[in-house]
């Protein structure tokens, strides 16, 4: 091949790199591993992580059962190793699956349109806020403090250089819901949108209709972020919202130490032109047959460059496929049954664990998470639980200092067993 090129050595091909910047040594990385050695190396990493523990952690990453066919299908090379479907004639598999994904997300969230995915729920929420700023021509955003603390951190990062002032609004001690009076007071004529999460970070289901009434009376948009997607199986969708930012990880995506997950933005159709990210649309080919294409790309960076609605390019397509398969497996009956099981497990866990601790925010409904105030500090309680191979709740004191060092957020899903709940309750009592 070198002869065909007219080169004498491989180094001829790198001659445009100035000699002083050519690397003349081996990179200092581990020597080449055989496949068996790669497997062994990762077995060793894996063994240093928790396995065989009962876990009560949720807080934005939810353990749910993953039907086996999610991986059998999404691991097919035709899905796994395909590219962004810019050549639709040979990418109809990905495109049709995305169209099905968009449809399911619309129906689940109660919105009219949905995009083909965002990176995750945190960046999705930030993009939704920026979208609301473009739609309204106003520039402030009001955020409930019960939105996931890390979502709020990401939003601050995104907003800081766009001149979007952020105001945070507190929750009420009785319900854990956003304080409606304070919310009303916080919204001004410059407020583009209000961002709430439901179920919120405490697991509490917000009164979306009441919030929407306040927000819309001031001419602002309501964005509802949903971190626990399985809740949509039993909790009414936020149809009163203008934009929904969903983290779909609960739909068949491994918790996987925090990613990759699957964000998605859904909204009212009238905001279509301000939607960030890729959109898949239906059309026909030259012979009139139905087919699908990426569409409305004049919103996107590769066409609009600095005037694009977002800089997003790569999204979470394969994860969106996992979500689509998950939702197909469960269907409309299964998603409800699954969510009901979560509700039952969390209800049992809250009452059982709550017998030996104080259960907070009792005056509003919750989904599969709840806040406990234990007699001892969360640190001490969790250290005791670890000895029983139980990972306790997420400590809330850092993000919500007013709740103190004894408050923690617990989660139970269909994977949490009664035995585990009873064992945790016994350990709390001890």
């Amino acid at each position, binding site marked *: 091949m070198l002869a065909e090129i007219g080169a004498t050595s491989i180094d001829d091909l790198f001659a445009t790199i100035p000699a002083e910047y050519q690397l003349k040594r081996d*990179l200092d990385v581990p020597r080449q591993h055989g496949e068996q050695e790669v497997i062994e190396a990762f077995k060793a990493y894996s063994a240093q992580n928790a396995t065989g523990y009962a876990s009560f952690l949720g807080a934005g990453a939810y353990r749910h059962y993953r039907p086996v066919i999610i991986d059998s299908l999404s691991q097919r090379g035709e899905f*796994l190793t395909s590219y962004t479907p810019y050549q639709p004639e040979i990418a109809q598999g990905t495109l049709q699956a995305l169209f099905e994904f*968009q449809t399911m997300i619309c129906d689940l969230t109660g919105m009219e349109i949905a995009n083909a995915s965002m990176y995750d729920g945190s960046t999705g929420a930030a993009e939704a806020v920026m979208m609301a700023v473009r739609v309204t021509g106003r520039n402030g955003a009001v955020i409930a403090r019960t939105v996931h603390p890390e979502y709020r951190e990401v939003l601050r990062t995104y907003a800081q250089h766009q001149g979007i002032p952020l105001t945070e609004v507190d929750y009420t001690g009785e319900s854990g819901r956003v304080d409606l009076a304070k919310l009303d007071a916080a919204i001004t004529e410059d407020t583009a949108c209000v961002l709430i999460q439901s179920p919120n970070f405490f697991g509490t289901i917000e009164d979306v209709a009441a919030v929407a009434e306040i927000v819309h009376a001031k001419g602002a948009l309501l964005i509802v972020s949903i971190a626990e997607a399985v809740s949509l199986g039993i909790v009414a969708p936020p149809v009163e919202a203008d934009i929904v930012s969903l983290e779909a990880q609960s739909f068949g995506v491994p918790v996987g130490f925090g990613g990759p997950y699957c964000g998605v933005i859904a909204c009212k159709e009238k905001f279509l032109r301000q939607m960030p990210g890729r959109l898949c649309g239906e059309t026909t080919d030259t012979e009139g047959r139905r087919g699908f294409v990426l569409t409305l790309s004049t919103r996107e960076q590769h066409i609009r460059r600095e005037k694009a609605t977002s800089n997003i390019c790569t999204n979470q397509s394969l994860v969106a496929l996992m979500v689509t398969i998950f939702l197909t497996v469960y269907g409309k009956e299964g998603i409800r049954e699954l969510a009901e099981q979560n509700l039952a497990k969390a209800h049992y866990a809250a009452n059982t664990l709550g017998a030996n601790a104080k259960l907070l925010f009792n005056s509003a409904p919750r989904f599969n998470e709840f806040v406990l105030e234990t007699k001892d500090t969360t640190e001490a309680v969790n250290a005791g639980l670890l000895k029983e191979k139980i990972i306790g709740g997420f400590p809330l004191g850092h993000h919500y200092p007013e709740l103190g060092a004894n408050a923690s957020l617990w989660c139970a899903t269909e994977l949490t067993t009664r035995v585990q709940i009873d064992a945790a309750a016994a350990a709390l009592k001890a």
Partner: protein
Amino acid sequence: MSDEKFIGTPRKATTHTSQNEGLIFEKSSPGKKAYRLSELDVPAVDASVLLGKSVRKEYGALPELSEIEIVRHFTRLSTWNYAIDLGMFPLGSCTMKYNGRVNEAVARFEGIAEAHPYQPESLSQGALGIMHDLSQYLIEITGMDAITLQPAAGAHGEFTGILMIRAYHESKGNARKKILIPDSAHGTNPATAAVVGYQVQNLKSNAEGMVDLAELEKLVDEDTAALMLTNPSTIGVFESEIHKIADILHAKGALLYMDGANMNALVGKTRPGDFGADVMHLNLHKTFSTPHGGGGPGSGPVACKAILEPFLPTPIVVRKADKSLAFDYDRPLSVGRVRMFYGNFGMFVRALAYTLANGPDGLRLTTEDAVLNANYIRAKLEGYFELPFKTPSMHEVVFSDKLQAKNGVKTGDMGKRLIDYGFHAYTVSFPMIVSGAMMIEPTESESREELDLLIDALQQIAREAAENPELVKTAPHTTRIRRLNETAAARNPVLRWKAPPSSIPLTPDSAAKEW
């Protein structure tokens, strides 16, 4: 096929069932199930009592099918995709290399796939170890001093890097106003600069398609925050005066951001940190073999020099005095978080597996093969297609459709025609500084035999463009569907399925009668 010809053959049987597959909603019938939940081991609850008016009543079009129907549906859809596993994907700038399956296997180990991001650090040492080790190797590969793995994709990495540049300048008392971007850049570059609140100033390329040093010298001033530069450039050429570019910027206090999309041309042969880049992102889904998955997930780590290290997003992985690994959140100068948790961790696992499977010699050989393959294609196709820039190519080569356009055949047509020959199209119409660009990146994964097939195909297409342009202009001819009407899709957007108003829902009974 007519019913007469196939008498005795059931009507549903077709020679190629995968050619006819409706939407999942059209296949749904009420009451079908593909799941069975575990028996509930706690008392059942009444949702309407617990949730009150918040209880859900409507479920829309969620489908109901049996498991085999679901398996067939998605398997059939998959057969409509082209993929690396089926053949070469010569997409310039996308680095469509083989995605090793050992990467997928290790990513599914229980301790890795089921690790919760908030589980105690003492029970996350394996996950932290993966992040720490990958970070060290990427720092070594790039020649940088520090890194964050948090960004979820390349554009997200750009966003992070430019945020850090902004924070750096702010720490010196002036955020500065503009970012210089060559006209050959990826669209994400200007979009990113805008998101971080910078004005975009366009930098014209010189006749060789490279940075024009005189022009750069003229434009860089005290308001310039940085230059965003792809190296090798989007025409696949190494900016051989890169150190001078860095010097010009640094002399005015501006920084050099390197878009690492084309890092597959450099790994093991040269290091951006050595030639003057201050901050750069990597695309793990390009250079480090994590699968593209039809458009994502990606991962866009950002590596930087020590001067930018204080501004990295939180948290970062640190080794404590007792040798254990931990997250450090206490970083007052940080730009903040760009994503919840720690990034697309599953991609870190795969990229680390790739790095281990290659080692220093494999990584270097990978780069050499990628560059060799691109130059082989260039040598074999020069003359068939116009080569707008004669500068030596690295890992990709950019031709143009100038010779074929005379017959009305455009780059997009030839890309479509390439599909008929069993390949994916090359990258069409990018970079924009080349009119009618045809950008080809073979990667190291392709054998000479596969390269020769691609070369034959493109040579044949060049002949067709001269002799039978209509054949090329109406391609592809062999796909399940023909060219799609993208204008209609944009003009009248149909973005979701809706049940036809007149449809009578299929019941198991009526579905059976269809047979």
